[in-house]
């Protein structure tokens, strides 16, 4: 599989899962992101025929919107749960990882999905990986909020 094929599948699976699970309609974009404020990064390992660290990054505000959508609540209600943005972004990445591994490697191939972790960063400290061992996609919501997904292969 070529790097472009890995990236294309990462994009397709992420778009589908965000729409199906969280009613968040996004589309890929070629534009660069300028992150402002707090950005939450969820990380999760895939261990299989080709191992990778998956990363999903979005603003805290979008994370809270995702939590609200996942739970069928309004954003004020969703804000009352413990760390809603971190929890929703970690769970979204977990939901993406399964079908992504199946599409990349096949559902007959054992690929272990790790437990997601999150870290909060300031926008300026986020640096996109552009080496040959990584692939990255940027998705934007209807309202222009970005979500960045990266797979760093090892």
């Amino acid at each position, binding site marked *: 599989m070529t790097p472009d094929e890995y990236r294309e599948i990462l994009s397709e699976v992420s778009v589908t899962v965000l729409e199906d699970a969280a009613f968040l309609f996004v589309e890929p974009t070629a534009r660069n992101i300028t992150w402002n404020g707090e950005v939450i990064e969820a990380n999760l390992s895939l261990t299989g025929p080709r191992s990778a660290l998956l990363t999903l990054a979005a603003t805290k505000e979008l994370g809270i919107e995702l939590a609200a959508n996942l739970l069928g609540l309004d954003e004020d209600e969703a804000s009352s749960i413990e760390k809603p943005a971190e*929890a*929703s972004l970690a769970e979204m990445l977990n*939901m993406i990882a399964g079908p992504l591994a*199946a599409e990349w490697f096949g559902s007959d191939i*054992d690929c272990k999905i790790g437990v997601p972790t999150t870290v909060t960063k300031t926008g300026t400290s986020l640096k996109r990986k552009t080496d040959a061992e990584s692939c990255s996609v940027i998705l934007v919501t209807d309202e222009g909020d970005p979500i960045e997904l990266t797979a760093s292969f090892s």
Partner: protein
Amino acid sequence: MSYNILVVDDSTIARLMLTKTVGISGIGIGSVYEAANGQEALKLMSENKIDMVFADLNMPEMSGVEMIESMSENDLLCTIPVVIVSSDHYETRIEKLKKLGVRAYLKKPFKPEELSEVINDVLGSKAGANDDAR
């Protein structure tokens, strides 16, 4: 008749999603217990009457597979129906879990109607078995 459900997932939001979906499934629900890993779940199962367990696979401390293996070695817990709710799509693992006695496997993200169908299948047959026993 109402049933007690145990939801086992390390993700708070996944537990809330499952609890909410179980609540709207139409089945009479008594209590919904929550655990963040297999170890906590086993403790809750030993202390409470649980009719059905929804469990994730990938959890810290004790995974869903380890929890099911422990349940299968316990005469009291081995009869509790377990449904796995996981993002893992590996077919061989799903088949192995079914051989261990897992009643159903829901892939995340799931639709509420898929969960309702599983609840009705599992608890419906349990209600039927209870009726037969009377």
